[in-house]
């Protein structure tokens, strides 16, 4: 699963912090392509698979506060 975070909205600092906080629940890789930070998520805990992407995005957004 890959999430595209727009660079003009999401900061790399908050993405990294979110990855650090969620690191126990899945494996992450960060990349970038033009205006986006790409976060590749693998080995998600099976019980969280359905909500993981949305919850992670929400958490990244909440770190901007």
């Amino acid at each position, binding site marked *: 699963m890959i999430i595209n975070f727009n660079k003009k909205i999401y900061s790399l600092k908050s993405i990294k912090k979110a990855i650090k906080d969620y690191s126990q629940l899945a494996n992450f890789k960060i990349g970038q392509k033009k205006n986006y930070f790409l976060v590749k998520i693998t080995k998600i805990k099976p019980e969280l698979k359905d909500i993981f992407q949305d919850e992670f995005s*929400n958490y990244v957004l909440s770190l901007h506060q």
Partner: protein
Amino acid sequence: MRKNKIVFSLDVTTYSLQAIYATAYSFVDRVYVFLDRKGKKIKVVLESKGNLKKKGLEDLKKEFHNELLNYLLRVEIAKRNQKIRDFIVGTALVSALPTELLTQSSKPEISGTADWQKDPLGIAIPWEEKYGKKKRKTKKKSK
């Protein structure tokens, strides 16, 4: 509008990013919020955590817009009152300091004046008093 999801866009020139962040934050307990940007438009995706019908999603969008206006005003007022707020907080912090700390900071000045009055280096003595007599002696010698 897809199942449980509503998508709309906001103009960055009308709504500040700070206000959008704050509004999104107030919604994260009820919906999944995802933002994207294309030019001057910010695409907002709200996906409900529970099951919502079309009407419910429309209401959510309206509520988001209302909250956005609320935060826009808050941000604007915060900007306008920043100086006075900083001043009030600064004054409150200083007045909350223990009186001992405040008096300690003024002690060196008092001791400084005391040292000056004592004049341990003898620099407060006028030139005439210090060297005036010597000159007279040299005059006598020359005669």
